[in-house]
């Protein structure tokens, strides 16, 4: 089984290195094919590991080699494949494989085709390190690795010029990439502090050692560590107030959005909380804060999605909102439900994004859903896929999202946090509304684009076939819930609804369902027969507030970016130029001047030299005599 661990881990690495060989050369389709095959190998290995753990119940712990060994600090390159990590591995490799195959079609006309595959596989490798590591240091390496790959891929079309915020809210791919990277750096500082606190108090970063010593630590240390780690999770999972980068990250190619910014990387924060559940379960205040923040983000992001016009941004807001749900579940102690929602969400959200990619491909890069419509006919399969994914996202019964999201909402009720429950229920209605607003505006009604110049066409067949596993899982994944619970609670704490909640579970489910169906019906009424612009509504304060993302990007720019730029300029002109540079220049000038001054000594006349020599000897003699006197 050990070999399977290494195959799962290193196949994406091999794929990345292979594609990198052709990074600078023109498009070679076989690069994409081989990369996809290697990713599929990795998926097969992960699935076999999952099957092995499922049947035997044993976890696999391998140590590849010693990595850092200095004094008391030993950090091995160790990999832990247990119920949690194998779930993540399987989800990550499955979605990656689909996205790799999809990219062969989607990036068809891109001249940096090979480079794209190299980055994409490198991302998967980093993600595998993140989820498989058996210690916090390895997790952090993967954490940074996915950050770098995310930066590379958001800024994949780095040559696009910056434009104003009114024209494109994310300004340019390179701007968005930098934003994502810098925001994540801020959060990673919190994460690092968390690791330092743990190491300082425990003396090890191995999960098993750390979790075994938790009962010996004082409450304040535990709280500090939990808060610091959660700050790291907030950055990676784009929780408020570090959320702005996620929607801007949509500047990257759509497969990237599907893989990194929906299914895998952004869930790393949730994974961290689940992985460190022994820590978070002994810090109830921090956990409650996580749940409250998650609930807030769920609502906050969903509200922005209600009015957005950009196809990809709507899905990005929805990702944000669903991440909020996961944090709500994890914060309330229902770790396994959070992980289940993570997996289910990965399937239908990746599918939704890939569908959006198809639409974008067909519409020649257009993303404004107000300029689409009537795509049902030319893009039958994409319509089906996006419809299924939206049904799953909205939580319509028997689709994947229904089971997982319902369980989260039920948990909120069960914990007695009625306010959180109410917000999550309302958010479920909003989710249904915006998902179907998008579907109806894109596929129903009459075409609002210029039909004479644009002829939308369906994506390649193989791409549509490649997407089918996700579609099937988005439909049926929910039925695996009890099996998953049985599997995962061997490791994670089990979470049971109380007797009382159990009794009224069907009423709670019905309430959610009413909201979800209500949202869909509302969207149908408003948008199914084409777009009717409502000037009054669009000019209202709330609409503008939502459409401008609560003016938070502008606020950050005014309060943080601009003062920082001013401070930097001040530092540059006054401190750097006037103090540092002047000092350095002074030293150089002194050397030049003294050299120039003493140059006259060099007359070329031997007699003068001899005189100077005599002067020097006399001086040395005097020095020697004086020092001899004092000794």
């Amino acid at each position: 089984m050990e070999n399977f661990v290494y195959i799962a881990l290193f196949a994406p690495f091999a794929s990345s290195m292979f594609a990198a060989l052709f990074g600078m050369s023109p498009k070679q389709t076989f690069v994409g094919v081989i990369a996809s095959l290697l990713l599929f190998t990795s998926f097969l290995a992960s699935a076999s590991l999952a099957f092995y753990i499922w049947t035997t119940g044993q976890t696999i712990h391998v140590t590849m080699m010693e990595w850092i060994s200095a004094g008391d600090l030993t950090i091995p390159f160790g990999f832990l494949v247990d119920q949690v990590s194998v779930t993540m591995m399987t989800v990550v490799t499955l979605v990656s494989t689909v996205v790799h195959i999809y990219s062969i079609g989607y990036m068809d006309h891109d001249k940096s085709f090979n480079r794209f595959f190299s980055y994409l596989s490198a991302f998967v490798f980093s993600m595998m390190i993140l989820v498989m590591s058996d210690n916090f240091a390895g997790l952090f390496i993967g954490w940074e690795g996915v950050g770098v790959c995310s930066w590379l891929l958001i800024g994949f079309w780095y040559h696009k010029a910056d434009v104003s915020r009114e024209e494109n809210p994310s300004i340019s791919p390179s701007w968005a990439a930098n934003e994502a990277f810098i925001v994540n750096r801020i959060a990673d500082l919190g994460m690092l502090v968390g690791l330092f606190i743990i190491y300082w108090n425990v003396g090890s970063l191995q999960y098993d050692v750390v979790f075994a010593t938790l009962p010996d630590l004082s409450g304040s240390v535990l709280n500090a560590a939990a808060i610091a780690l959660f700050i790291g999770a907030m950055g990676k999972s784009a929780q408020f107030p570090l959320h702005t980068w996620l929607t801007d990250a949509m500047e990257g190619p759509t497969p990237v959005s599907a893989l990194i910014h929906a299914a895998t990387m952004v869930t790393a924060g949730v994974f961290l909380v689940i992985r460190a559940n022994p820590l978070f379960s002994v810090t109830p205040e921090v956990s409650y804060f996580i749940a409250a923040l998650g609930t807030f983000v769920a609502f906050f992001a969903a509200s922005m999605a209600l009015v957005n016009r950009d196809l990809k941004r709507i899905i990005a807001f929805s990702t944000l909102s669903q991440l909020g749900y996961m944090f709500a579940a994890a914060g309330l102690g229902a770790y396994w439900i959070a992980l289940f929602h993570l997996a289910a969400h990965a399937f239908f959200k990746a599918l939704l994004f890939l569908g959006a990619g198809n639409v974008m491909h067909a519409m020649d890069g257009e993303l404004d859903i107000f300029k689409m419509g009537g795509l049902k006919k030319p893009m039958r399969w994409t319509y089906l896929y996006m419809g299924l994914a939206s049904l799953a996202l909205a939580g319509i019964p028997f689709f994947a999202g229904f089971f997982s999201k319902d369980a989260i909402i039920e948990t909120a009720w069960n914990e007695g946090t009625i306010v959180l429950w109410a917000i999550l229920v309302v958010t479920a209605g909003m989710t249904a509304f915006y998902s179907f607003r998008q579907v109806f505006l894109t596929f129903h009604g009459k075409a609002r684009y210029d039909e004479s110049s644009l002829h939308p066409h369906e994506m390649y067949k193989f791409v549509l076939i490649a997407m089918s596993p996700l579609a099937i899982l988005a439909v049926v994944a929910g039925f695996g819930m009890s099996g998953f619970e049985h599997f995962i609670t061997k490791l994670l704490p089990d979470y049971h609804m109380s007797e009382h909640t159990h009794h009224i579970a069907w009423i709670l489910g019905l309430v959610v369902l009413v909201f979800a169906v209500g949202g869909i019906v509302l969207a149908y009424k408003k948008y199914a027969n084409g777009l009717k612009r409502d000037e009054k509504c669009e000019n209202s304060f709330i609409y503008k507030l939502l459409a401008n993302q609560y003016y938070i990007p502008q606020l950050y720019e005014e309060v943080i970016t601009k003062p920082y730029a001013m401070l930097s300029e001040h530092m540059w002109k006054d401190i750097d130029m006037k103090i540092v540079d002047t000092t350095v220049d002074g030293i150089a000038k002194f050397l030049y001047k003294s050299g120039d001054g003493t140059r006259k000594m060099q007359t070329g006349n031997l007699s003068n030299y001899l005189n100077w020599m005599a002067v020097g000897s006399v001086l040395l003699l005097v020095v020697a005599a004086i020092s001899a006197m004092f000794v």
Partner: protein
Amino acid sequence: MIGLTHYLIVSAIIFSIGLVGVLRRRNLLMLFFATEVMLNAVNIAFAAISHYYNDLTGQMFAFFIIAIAASEVAVGLGLLIVLYKKYGSLDLDDLANMKG
């Protein structure tokens, strides 16, 4: 009675004469003579101190210096002849061609 001090004073006087010669003279040949004078001043000091301490090492060293001075003159004079053939002068002011 002539003691060590007298010898050393003579040696110092001769050394100073040689040093002034080195500093003031402009002719390379004269510089050579001046250095010889300085070397011999040192030889006097060596011989005197050697005698004073009853230790032959100083006198042996004086012989070494004489030998080195002889070989130095042999090489030096050869160089001077070449220099004179090339420039037609041994005056240091004429030979200054390495001005910085």
